[in-house]
């Protein structure tokens, strides 16, 4: 057992966790933040991606104990004061999701991608999201969604591409 203090979506939590508890299980089971999903058991699918101290990590391969004194952002913490983050807006506007199960992880990975590269090419978006699997969209509209958000975050006028 370890006692950890973690800031999650701006709120501090002090919790006892088993040494083996994974961050994703801590978030889902102990904090009841079920927006972060589990889609595999080998760190391939990326449905569990969250930000730890601003960087995207797969929470299914991160021990909760390692996040002592860290700041974690999950999909639940992305919208501010009821306003969707440009990535959330982009996924909605561009039909970047279908079943929505991979979406939280996809958005969190894209968040990190755009922090590092605010003006990516389509190819850079595709490679930047290699660690996230979507079975519904074929990724076509996910690329559009990320580009929508990138443009908006750069302060440009944006609209969803025509169908």
């Amino acid at each position, binding site marked *: 057992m370890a006692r950890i203090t973690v800031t999650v979506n701006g709120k501090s939590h002090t919790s006892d966790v088993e040494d083996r508890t994974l961050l994703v299980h801590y978030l889902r089971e102990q904090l009841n933040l079920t927006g972060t999903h589990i889609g595999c*058991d080998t760190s391939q699918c990326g449905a569990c991606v969250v930000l730890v101290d601003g960087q995207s990590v797969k929470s299914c391969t991160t021990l909760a104990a390692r996040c002592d004194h860290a700041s974690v952002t999950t999909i639940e913490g992305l919208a501010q004061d009821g306003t969707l983050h440009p990535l959330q807006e982009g996924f909605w506007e561009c039909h970047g999701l279908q079943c929505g199960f991979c979406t939280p992880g996809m958005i969190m990975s894209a968040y990190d991608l755009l922090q590092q590269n605010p003006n990516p090419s389509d190819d850079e978006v595709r490679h930047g999201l290699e660690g996230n699997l979507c079975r519904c969209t074929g990724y076509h509209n996910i690329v559009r969604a990320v580009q929508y958000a990138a443009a908006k975050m750069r302060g440009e006028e944006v609209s969803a591409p025509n169908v």
Partner: protein
Amino acid sequence: MTSETTKPMIGRAIKRREDPKLITGQGNFLDDVKLNDMTHAAVLRSPYAHARILSIDTRKAAALPGVVAVFVGKDLLDVNALPCAWPAGGFKNNMNTPRAMAVDVVRFVGEAVAVVIAEDRFIARDAIDLIDVDYEPLAVVVDPEKATQAGAPQLHENAPNNVVVEWSAGNREGTNRAVASAEVVVKERIVNQRLMATPIETRGSIARYESSTNEFTLWTSSQAPHVMRLLLTAFVFGIPETKLRVIAPNVGGGFGQKIFVYPDMVFCMWISRKLGRPVKFVEDRSENFKSSTHGRDHVTDVELCGTRDGKITGLRVKTYAGLGAYLSTIAPGVATTLYGRIITGAYKIPNVSIDVIATYTNTAMVDAYRGAGRPEASYLIERIVDRFAVELGMDPAEVRRRNYIPPTEFPYDNGLGLLPYDSGNYAPALDKALANVGYTNLRQEQAALRAQGRYIGIGLSSYVEICGVAPTAWANGQGWGAGLWESANVRIHLTGQVVVTTGSLPHGQGVETTFAQIVADELGVPYDSVLIEHSDTAGTPFGYGTYGSRSLAVGGTAMVKSARKIKEKAKRLAAHLLEANPEDMIFADGKISVKGSPDKSKTFGEIALYASVGASMPEGEEPFLDETTYYDPPNCTFPFGTHISVVEVFPDTGAVEVKRYVAVDDVGNIINPRIVHGQLHGGIAQGMAQALYENAVYDDNGQLLTGTLMDYAIPNASMLPDFEISHTVTPSPVNPLGVKGAGEAGTIGSAQCIMNAVIDALSPFGVRHMQMPATPEKIWHATRS
């Protein structure tokens, strides 16, 4: 969060009303459901593909602190095996279905042997490692053809040579004569490899039992909650249907895998009753791969014959279809009716003969996976037609054009026991695809690049598929054990809000949005005033669920018909209030007015309030606007299209780059183009993945070698191209919406499109066929042999 009020809504690419919760982490998927006092299940699964269970010792597991109970197959003998609802009609089926857990013999790796129930999922997982099982391994067969050969291990006593059913259709003698006398015959062995559906949300079940009322509630990640309720109560538990409520929470992708009844549904229900506590089980990914259903697994010998000038005169097919160790819910029907009866694709072929030998193997069960039988059929005919074109030295577009069913022959009967193809016009879709891709220039460019040692391939695929699968009477003749109609209830509340309940349900298709668009237009009410309710057997009329691209064609039509009944009643009530004849009433723009006197009118809202208060109804009328329809269509629908891909193959590495993917799909009328395009993108991605990446592989001992996402290559974003989608529109005459269905079309059109391009690129190396997936290793070897 939407405020879409402009009419008409049909045809508009509005964004989905489903999305706000999903993009903010508020979706409620199965594993997000938590109940008071809930226990957690973990499953011990067989490591052997075929073995006798000699003994199971659960004592150490049961003694682990936090473990509540341990159960084995013998504990659950008071409930029946899972049912198979679709044996192949008109043929003898040797049926064997799985129990919730194996009792004496395990027949595939991953079959459940014991279940541990514990206070949390981690303790349950720890405990399964403490169970000792003594197995006596038996001989194994995994290949669907080898399973039928002399000396093969036998899986079931009632299935000699492991045969489930020997099924045939067509005209054997005529076809034999056509092949024997043809100017040109091409033949090929074509494998449609085993695939794993891989919804990113795995499957699972949560069951709760109320002892005071003897009622179960089952939350399960399902495409067909009403069917689950029927099968689990009437067939497995032998209890009244009313004693089970099934709820599908947000479903994280299905692709067919979540249509079926599964062992975890049974053991969670049974154990929840036994313990008096809720039981939760959610698969991990490796369990999903080992134990939930797979798709495809066909080995086929095909011959196609024709004339030197490109006319196809005959098609002879013999397929071994592996169905796994037991029959899943609709497995035999998928391998026979949904495959063999559409084997002629887009072509008019005078002589056709098809045999399907469906077999048991020591593998996970095989059942419907996106397209279900139709991708296998479409892949086969489109590969062999391409092979025919190469043999003739004729352009593959021209061979296709010469053999299309002419538009004048619809409705068209292909002679294989289908209902007639509803409508079609295939050449315009081909022409549009050729134009969009710039075909003539492309062929010239291909030749020029080839001279420089670069290998470009152009692949075509013209597909036809069966959607909106129905009507019930025809399906029953095919062995389908229930109905295939769909239901919808439309009711108008006092405030004019429209509540629609349906037996169809989404798992990514956006049907809440699409259905609301339809109903808003039909009733002339604001889109936002239409609420679509689904996925809970307690709140919706019985329906058969969402699969086979049927939700819009069948479920949507039920909704339209209910809305029209509402309109008729509203007209009668308005006529009463306005002292006019019901026949003289016009329903338009949310108002009911008297023909010729537009000032004499009532709004729909006024009529709704009047009807729902019901104080002074005309004689013979009941209060409330509330209408239900159970709609059984007269036919299936038959979407079609032509896809063209351009690939480059790199002989040094064996790599394939998909440079263009152009699709022209005719799915009939389109309600929401954005959603339809999304469906096509995802469908194409799955077919492309079959062509290039995915392959579920068992070794000869029945071990699944592709048991994780490290080994089973579903594509990531860098492995797929952009898709260029357009349409022709040939409305279906079958339903009032004129829609055909779009959920599976992409998958049905795409695998062969890519393979035809890869093989075209490799033609300078003498390659005439290659089995999927076209991996770099295969291509590298092909360029060197």
